[in-house]
């Protein structure tokens, strides 16, 4: 259950206020908008990266705003794309004169709202590019129709680093598209989450069942199966992700085991041992694995596996130093 809130109607605004109060050393509020940007705003003459989507996924999206990572995040209500108006305002605030890249998970609401904002900004002479994240292999056989899940993290990281090191708009966009093309995820869920103020979780899973191919918005999975052991779940995640290795992938990949909120670290470490062995056995050179919560779905029970296959470009961008509320690397 989601228990800590005041009036559910004001949840988003109060969350933004609390977030910016806590992390004023990294971020500031974008004036007159439901969004935050890196302290000091965009760098004149440099490309900015605006990420965003509904809330309920922390550290997505606002927790990844800061030096070396995203320049700003536009924040929707729980599981709800920010409006075109807010995407427009945040995009406008973030333009440093060299263009803005919008990046977000591929959901129809986000596509429409960011799309409308792009149209308005382009009319005002701001060059806007869009990099949609489509990493969830469970969601469609067609790559471009897939939704974005925890792969968001890697794609945003690459985009942010490319922009911060001073690449031009074409290059930043190209790096982001390349990162997305090289990223695959698959997840499972054991229980649904509860939207603040709702009496019931969005879905429930029987104690002895699990959902395969879950979304990160409290949607149930595409299929229900019997609950399996940690080793078997590890096998399933690895098989699903490796069933769709990107064309042109080398052997090196960065690995993320992502928790959705209420499946905890110790459980993920138990599972990670088998994931590591299986990936290594499949010939993958595992680079800087992460086990943690980087794309949550409120208090949903579940977890997923994400790989981004690396070449020297992507590896350099992944390693680019960042300082944000939820992610720092040196």
């Amino acid at each position, binding site marked *: 259950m989601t228990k800590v809130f005041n009036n559910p109607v004001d949840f988003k605004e109060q969350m933004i206020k609390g977030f910016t109060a806590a992390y004023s050393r990294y971020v500031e509020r974008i004036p007159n908008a439901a969004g935050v940007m890196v302290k000091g705003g965009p760098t004149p003459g440099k490309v900015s990266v605006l990420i965003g989507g509904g809330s309920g996924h922390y550290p997505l999206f606002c927790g990844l705003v800061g030096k070396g990572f995203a320049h700003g995040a536009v924040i929707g*209500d729980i599981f*709800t*794309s920010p*409006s*075109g108006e807010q995407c427009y305002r945040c995009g406008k605030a973030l333009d440093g004169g060299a263009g803005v890249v919008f990046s977000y998970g591929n*959901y129809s609401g986000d596509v429409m*709202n960011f799309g409308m904002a792009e149209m308005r900004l382009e009319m005002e002479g701001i060059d806007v590019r869009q990099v949609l994240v489509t990493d969830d292999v469970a969601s469609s056989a067609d790559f471009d129709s897939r939704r974005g899940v925890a792969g968001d993290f890697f794609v945003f990281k690459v985009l942010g680093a490319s922009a911060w090191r001073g690449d031009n708009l074409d290059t930043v966009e190209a790096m982001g598209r390349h990162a997305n093309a090289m990223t695959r995820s698959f997840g499972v869920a054991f229980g649904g989450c509860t*939207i603040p103020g709702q009496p019931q979780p*969005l879905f429930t899973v029987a104690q002895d069942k699990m959902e395969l191919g879950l979304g990160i918005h409290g949607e149930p999975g595409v299929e229900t199966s019997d609950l399996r052991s940690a080793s078997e779940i590890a096998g399933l995640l690895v098989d699903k992700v490796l069933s769709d290795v990107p064309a042109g992938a080398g052997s090196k990949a960065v690995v993320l085991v992502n928790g959705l909120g209420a499946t905890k670290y110790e459980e993920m470490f138990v599972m990670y041992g088998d994931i590591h062995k299986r990936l290594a056995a499949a010939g993958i050179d595992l680079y800087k694995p992460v086990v943690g919560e980087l794309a949550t779905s409120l208090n949903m029970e579940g977890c997923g596996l994400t790989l981004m296959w690396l070449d020297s470009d992507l590896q350099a961008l992944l390693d680019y130093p960042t300082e944000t509320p939820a992610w720092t690397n040196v």
Partner: protein
Amino acid sequence: MDQSTLAAQCIDAALAIILEKEPELAQLDSVAGDGDHGAGMARGFRAAAAADRTGTAGQVIAKAGMAFSDAAGGASGALVGMYLMTLGGGLQGDVTTAIQVHSALVKAQDALMKLGKAKLGDKTMLDTLIPFTEAFGAQAGAGATIPAAWGGALDAGRAGMESTKDMVAARGRSAVLKERSLGTQDPGATSVYYVLRAVGEVLQRECP
């Protein structure tokens, strides 16, 4: 009652029905979606009802649409917002005939379809809207008044809404879940029907 007051009353009626049905809409959206449709429509209509109400009926509706879109967010915020903005834009000057209204409804529907790229049978709000608008057009062509055409078209909208129960979603969030959406009525088709019905009641009452 002048036409802009009437338009404002329609928006108030939409807000009232959505607030009443919010839990049902949340529940429908949780089956194969993310549960936020009720909250989103409520946010949207609250903002629409609080928007500036000066100007012609068309202007009132267009401004309500802008406010709706910004406050609601999500797929339905963009779609319903765009619909209302286009509908308002299509209602120029004094609106006296159902033919005029029908032409605005068609424009709004086209804008929504262009934005969302969905079509009839995709298990979306269009499955309520398209049959409603078509039936409205038929009544208008046969010379019905606006309230009569609206009231007469509601059954077609309701049938369209109910038909979404047996559809597999092809657009929007639920499309990923395919068969899982079978058996559940589409939340957007449901909210749109409730709004059309509430507007019909206002028209019946205020333009006898």
